[in-house]
């Protein structure tokens, strides 16, 4: 993938308010790059789910928001990183309907369905990284 990164913004997530700030930043970027309301809602919902995961499971972490361009196509990539407990069984966590905290258990599997690319890496005791990418539709 020869997508160019046009800009990068790092934001910390250590509270519920931080999740709201990350969501607003991603929405503003998506709208600026011409995402329609459906794509924008899908992306901001995914960002909210993953941002909440950080402060619920790991208490703190980072969101790295990247503005992409692949040829003429604009995209947004957001990576969520934490040094929390990690996910012991990724297949189980991704299966859907499973939840360890107060959410529905649709968080990870549901989020994956909202974006074009979803990369999850996790190591128990080391932390978790989830990277999502959404491209503008033509």
């Amino acid at each position, binding site marked *: 993938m020869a997508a160019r990164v046009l800009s990068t913004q790092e934001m910390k997530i250590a509270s519920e*308010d931080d999740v709201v700030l990350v969501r607003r930043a991603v929405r503003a970027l998506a709208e600026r790059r011409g995402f329609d*309301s459906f794509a924008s*809602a899908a992306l901001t919902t995914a960002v*909210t*789910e993953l941002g909440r995961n950080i402060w619920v499971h790991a208490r703190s972490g980072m969101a790295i928001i990247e503005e992409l361009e692949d040829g003429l196509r604009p995209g947004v990539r957001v990576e969520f990183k934490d040094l929390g407990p990690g996910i012991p069984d990724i297949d189980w966590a991704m299966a859907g309907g499973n939840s360890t905290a107060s959410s529905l258990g649709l968080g990870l599997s549901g989020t994956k369905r909202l974006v074009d690319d979803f990369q999850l890496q996790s190591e128990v005791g080391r932390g978790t990284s989830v990277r999502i990418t959404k491209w503008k539709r033509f």
Partner: protein
Amino acid sequence: MQSGQIPILRIGTTLLASIQIELRDTTAQSFQEDVLKAIEKSRSRGLIIDITGLDMVDTFVARILTDTGRMAKLMGTETVLVGMRPEVAATLVRMGFSMQGVHTALNVDEGLALLAQLQGAQGRA
């Protein structure tokens, strides 16, 4: 936790709560408690939750809304969720979420009509 950020109005035997602010988890939780207390106090028989103002509903907020409907039901009140935007409906369904426990309608008018219908059916039973 700040309570009362979302106004809950009484119209006859119906309560109308219109969510016009960006919902945080804690606001959503206090809203649920406020609604249930308002139902007890007003003895209303129907509840309409208007989410026209929400441009995003994640699974946490969706769960709070459906749980609120199920809790209201235990108190004898039917809940109609109205004003869901197309992109919100599309996102929730793509995530695999079903709004079990609440009725839905396009807008407040349709919601009131649905409540009248539900209450009429109860009255005849």
